[in-house]
């Protein structure tokens, strides 16, 4: 199998998962598509080397996180190869708390949001997050703490610590719909 068809297979298998990751990183479908497209273009250019090291997935996810927190998207944005649908899906989230959390995530500085996504969606350790973003572990911790603080003040826990499942129905396992689905 040649490099091109391997790349095609990778994109066919992983593009939707990467878009999901791009969506939680950026908060909107256009930026999700933009991040995914740019990271895949960079992956294509580095494909022989990256594939040899068996790490295309981590390469592309790291690229997306770094792109998201860099100034790249502020100064350069290519035309997308397809038009993702418009619109907010706030209403589609199952509970008021989730809707409020999602809305507040959109107000966080990019690095804070990226750290929270890497920790709570990608399930990375702070050390891994530090590696992905190229910052120290202390910086990761402080971004996480600031971000969580903002979320906490936006969504006071109505029930307080307790046995109920505040996420509402359909989410008995916190990671059932999150994280990398391989």
């Amino acid at each position, binding site marked *: 199998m040649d490099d091109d068809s391997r790349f095609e297979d990778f994109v066919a298998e992983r593009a939707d998962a990467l878009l999901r990751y791009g969506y939680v990183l950026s908060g909107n479908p256009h930026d999700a598509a933009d991040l995914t497209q740019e990271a*895949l273009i960079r992956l*294509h250019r580095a494909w022989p080397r990256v594939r040899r090291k068996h790490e295309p997935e981590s390469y592309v996810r790291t690229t997306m996180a770094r792109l998201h927190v860099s100034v790249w998207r502020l100064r350069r944005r290519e*035309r997308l*190869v397809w038009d993702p649908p418009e619109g907010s899906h706030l209403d589609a989230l*199952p509970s008021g708390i*989730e809707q409020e959390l999602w809305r507040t995530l959109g107000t966080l500085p990019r690095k804070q949001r990226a750290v929270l996504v890497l920790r709570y969606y990608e399930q990375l350790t702070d050390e891994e997050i530090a590696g992905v973003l190229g910052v120290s572990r202390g910086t990761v911790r402080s971004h996480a703490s600031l971000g969580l603080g903002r*979320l906490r003040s936006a969504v006071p826990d109505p029930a307080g610590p307790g046995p109920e499942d505040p*996420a509402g129905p359909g989410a008995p396992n916190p990671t059932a719909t999150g994280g990398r689905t391989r």
Partner: protein
Amino acid sequence: MSDHLEDNLRTTLGHAAEHAPRAPGALSAHVAARSRRRRARAQTLLAAAAVMLVAGGAGIAVRGIADGPVTPAAGPFPAPGSGSASGAPSPSGEPVVPDPVEKVWPEAVWKIPAKLSDGREFQPQAFIDDRTLLLETSEGFEKADAIYSYDLVEHRVHKIADIGTPKGVFASGYTVGNGLIVWQTIDEADGDESTAPRTTEFWSVPVEGGRPTAIRTDRPLRGGADKLTVTGDRLAFSLERGGVFTVPLGGGTVEPVPGADNHHILRWPWVGTPGRHPRDGATAFGELVNVENGDVDEAVVRPGERDVRCGVTACVGTRPDGGSAFFRLRDGSRERDIPGGGEPPAGLVADRLHTVRLPVPPGGQYLHDLVTGRSGDLGIRPDAKGQSVSVEPGIGDGRLVSYPLKGEYVIIDLARIAAESPAGTS
């Protein structure tokens, strides 16, 4: 401690992710196409710069040594005179580094400060005349903002014009003729040739200075030009995708040059196909047409030969065995070895000048004159990261070689070197 907030955050992100857009079926093909276009553009820019950064000079050294002791300076054509004094192998048989270019061709080499007096960096672009250089300054990466003339004898700098271009528009292709500096600006659009092709505009300004004037064309020009030449009162140009055209310097109708539909300008009036960077191992400028008298010439290439690059009268290339390189006339006659141990020769200027990688030290390069057999070390050495600049002569105006070296710019006028007779008298 994991609290409710963190759990809520996990589920929120998980649920939200399900609302991400779906990838279109052809995403992989689109991505691959964008990637290739970007690579092609990067190569064009690098080639236009004539100097690029390379890494891994060590691999070159291994090859040079494996091919046996190399005596680069001697070359295949020992000059009858004292031309290649530096070329004798040392008693140990170790390769000998040629003398520095400034010592071998003192009349053709200058070293100038790498920054203007106000501290700004510049890129040498072309010779305006025998003693004057055209420099371009940039306000940022690939963003030219002004052009200057530099008097190599009196070291005087004179601003010719401000040429600030909007974001995403690049100036290149500088050429001089008819008292004018002429160049192109390419609007990159969004980088996608299928939806918004790049467009090119031409500009001119008197050599003495003034305001740049657009050379208006009767229709928009799609794609960039790979070579511009002033011929009489017209600007001739070839497109990167092939095709030679002319337009009056004062602007007007763009006229295709008959019989040059897929051709690239080599040295006016010679145009050829394929161009300087052919695909699939084709011979660079294998077919030549003289657009003034219609003469056509097909270079002789033998089966299995690789990386063959031709000029107006001669070709260089690698033999089928891969271990040796040749120089010969276009008709296949007078074939001789050239140094470099089979490395594809870089550039062929004035049918006689090319660069060769030094086997030791790795990353170095020397300039070799195939007619006189003389060689001069360019002085390039790898930095601590193992990177060094790589010079390809013959890009741009076909006369200027320039590269940064230890805080200075080395300027070489290949026309002066090519004016030397085979006897090596200079």
